């Protein structure tokens, strides 16, 4: 069984193809929109996705050495994400499903990140850190659903760091030679400065940290602020993680999503793991950022459990939470 998956929730348009036997992932092609300056405008994003879609689709089929006729289902990330971007993926998926008479499979973007994590890290029963530009979530699977133990109460950690480096004119680009520019900037830090540190139970709040860090630029050297904002933010996340570990007694931590690639987070997690005798399993870089393969693979699992959606009901859901999704394939 083969499923083609389409990702278009944010800055990346990606197409992946997954099969239900090794090597599982047959293709993973994408194109990421990078604005020349400032943040992403939803309209520009949608235009980018619509422009690259035919080419990405053709390349994915070529990479998988398969034709669209041999595909059993079309999976698409219907949310969460930015409405105009989501709609491009949905339109392409609906068109393919209609024209070639394929099953349409709704996939939650976050579940895609998590499932590709299970596949590529071989985690069995992990506490999961789902960290992407727009999400900071601590979750674990329990009785049919991913239950959220902790999350950000306002903005996501990844987004917060992106906004900071952009506001102080260090970005875009946000990642240079595989390193986030906040890490590069922090390498020249001399001292830790006092910034807000807000953990509430297992939840975190990053907006006060961002505001204080931006205000601090008038008084302190930028590298010191880069270092301090990163330390506070990661330490808040790690403390919340420790609380979730204490509560769940899990022996594995799986990290998925774009922020999983962060080298400084990795080294902190290694220290935490040693301390708690848990294993850290991090999704490999080619599957950490948004990609089509994760949608295809989660779609494959869903299709095997009979999860499909009629085309007329396939509306996009910009705020679709992972804990609203039934996961019949994990019981």
């Amino acid at each position, binding site marked *: 069984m083969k499923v083609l998956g389409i990702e278009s929730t944010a800055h990346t348009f990606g197409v992946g193809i997954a099969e239900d036997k090794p090597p599982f992932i047959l293709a993973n092609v994408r194109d990421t929109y990078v604005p020349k300056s400032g943040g992403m405008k939803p309209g520009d994003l949608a235009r980018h996705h619509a422009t690259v879609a035919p080419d990405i689709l053709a390349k994915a089929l070529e990479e998988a050495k398969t034709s669209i006729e041999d595909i059993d289902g079309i999976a698409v990330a219907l949310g969460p994400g930015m*409405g105009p971007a*989501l*709609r491009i993926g949905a339109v392409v998926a609906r068109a393919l499903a209609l024209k070639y008479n394929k099953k349409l499979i709704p996939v939650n973007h976050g579940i895609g990140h998590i499932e590709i994590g299970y596949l590529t890290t071989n985690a069995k029963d992990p506490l999961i850190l789902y960290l992407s530009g727009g999400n900071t979530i601590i979750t674990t699977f*329990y*009785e049919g659903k991913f*239950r*959220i*133990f902790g*999350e*950000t*109460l*306002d903005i996501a950690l990844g987004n917060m760091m992106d906004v900071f480096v952009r506001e102080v004119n260090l970005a875009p680009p946000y990642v240079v030679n595989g390193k986030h520019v906040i890490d590069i900037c922090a390498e020249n830090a001399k001292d*830790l400065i*006092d910034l807000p*540190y807000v*953990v*509430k*139970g*297992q*939840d975190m709040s990053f907006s006060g940290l961002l505001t204080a860090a931006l205000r601090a630029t008038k008084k302190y050297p930028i590298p010191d602020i880069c270092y301090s904002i990163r*330390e*506070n933010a*990661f*330490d808040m996340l*790690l*403390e919340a993680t*420790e*609380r979730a*570990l*204490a*509560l769940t007694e899990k022996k594995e931590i799986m990290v998925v999503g774009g922020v999983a690639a962060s080298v400084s987070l990795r*080294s*902190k*997690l290694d*220290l*935490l793991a*040693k*301390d*708690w005798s848990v294993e850290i399993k991090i999704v490999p870089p080619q599957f950490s950022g948004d990609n089509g393969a994760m949608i295809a693979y989660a779609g494959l699992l869903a299709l095997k459990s009979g999860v499909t959606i009629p085309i007329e009901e396939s*509306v*996009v*859901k*910009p*705020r679709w*939470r992972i804990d609203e999704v039934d996961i019949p394939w994990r019981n």
Partner: protein
Amino acid sequence: MENRRGRYSLEELKLLKRGAESQIYETYFLGIHAIVKKRISKAYRDPKLDRKINLERTIMEAKLMYNALKSGINVPAILYIDKDNFSIIMEFIEGITVKEVLWKNLYDPKKIGEMIGEIALRLHSSQIAHGDLTTNNLILKENKLFLIDFGLSKRTNDVEDFATDVHVFLRSLESVHPDKKDEVFDGFKLTYSKFKLYEKVMETLKDIRMRGRYVEERRSKSSNRE
């Protein structure tokens, strides 16, 4: 008897529990059955941030436990504070956590909820937010409920902080006891509703759950069908 540590005498430290930010040891302090809560330095933290967090929390925790006790909440009695070692020595409470009580069906869930609501009522009426009100931080001993771990507590008059307590509590029910959530929370509301800011807290609770992507309600309000 053989172990004499620092300025106070502890008899045989035995590691009891590993918390998220501290080690809990069982011991006898001047003949009293006690625990030592010692905050751990984290290898992953910058040493300056580490010291600041541990020192502030040790002092705050001791202060607020004392205040909670004064307002009639069962908390372990504090026996000694050693802020240089980020340690608090307190009375040992022999009981089991509400988490286990609910898991093992040892007590009526609604009644437990009422008792927790009573604690939240007293706590918030004395302007304390606990900060980590989960079923793991409540201990049942001889039909009495003890509140522990004031590590994230603060003195406050802000409805937002009270609502966060309720939110964290509700979240611990949803994630760890989904099957008993409603019964426990119904009991909770029964007693907690005597709090003078109850209506405002519940309103803010709704806000918090909408604001931070707790969006069941928000979704239906905004542009879901696009």
